[in-house]
């Protein structure tokens, strides 16, 4: 299990590769891996967005991410879980979050990856402040993840 909150640019594919070196001894027990990467768009709610500041609650945020990963490992049969989340100043096209799960079976990998992502959005303390042409604004709400949008 790798849980990280990072304050500079990270490469999701490098992070996945690093996790896979950790589980190399049980590589041939794994049949499925599911990865999700959230990246910053240059638009939101109809406005163009130049950059974004991601605030977190140091200590509580890491604790929640760990709890989410541990609970996922009790609910699904997982060989490994990696969560990486960016904080600080960030620009369009940069990665915000990586959730990655490895399992013997594909339903376990898919379900757990998605559930971790939804849990993260609804319970991990992060807040986005966007810089638009009209100044800065706090994003008010995350939209639901099992519906059609965002």
């Amino acid at each position, binding site marked *: 299990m790798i849980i990280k909150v990072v304050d500079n640019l990270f490469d999701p594919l490098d992070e996945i590769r690093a996790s896979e070196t950790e589980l190399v001894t049980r590589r041939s027990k794994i049949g499925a891996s599911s990865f999700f990467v*959230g990246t910053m768009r240059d638009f939101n709610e109809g406005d163009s967005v130049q950059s974004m500041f*991601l*605030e*977190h*609650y140091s*200590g*509580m945020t890491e*604790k929640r991410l760990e709890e989410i990963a541990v609970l996922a490992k009790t609910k699904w049969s997982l060989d490994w879980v990696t969560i990486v*989340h960016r904080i600080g100043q960030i620009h369009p096209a940069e990665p*915000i*979050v990586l959730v990655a799960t490895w399992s013997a079976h594909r339903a376990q990998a898919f379900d757990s990856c998605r559930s971790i*992502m939804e849990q*993260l*959005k*609804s*319970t*991990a*303390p*992060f*807040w*986005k*402040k966007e810089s638009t042409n009209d100044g800065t604004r*706090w*994003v*008010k*709400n*995350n939209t639901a993840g099992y519906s059609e949008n965002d």
Partner: protein
Amino acid sequence: MSIKVRFFASLSDMVGKSEMDLEFAEGLTVLDVWEKTSPDDLLPSGSLFAINHNYSEPEDLLKDGDEIAFFPPLTGG
């Protein structure tokens, strides 16, 4: 008794500070703390509370040494 009070994101902007220490006698709830620290501001609906990094309810009681945090709906990920 003394506690640490923290405000995040838009609530920090609203209150005008990100943290403060608060001395009090006893029997203070989460909501009481908001009213003592931010008397001019109505707590926005949807606000969340955490005592010592665990989500808590508005009627939960604080005890000596606690850290209580107030924050708006989460927008990470």
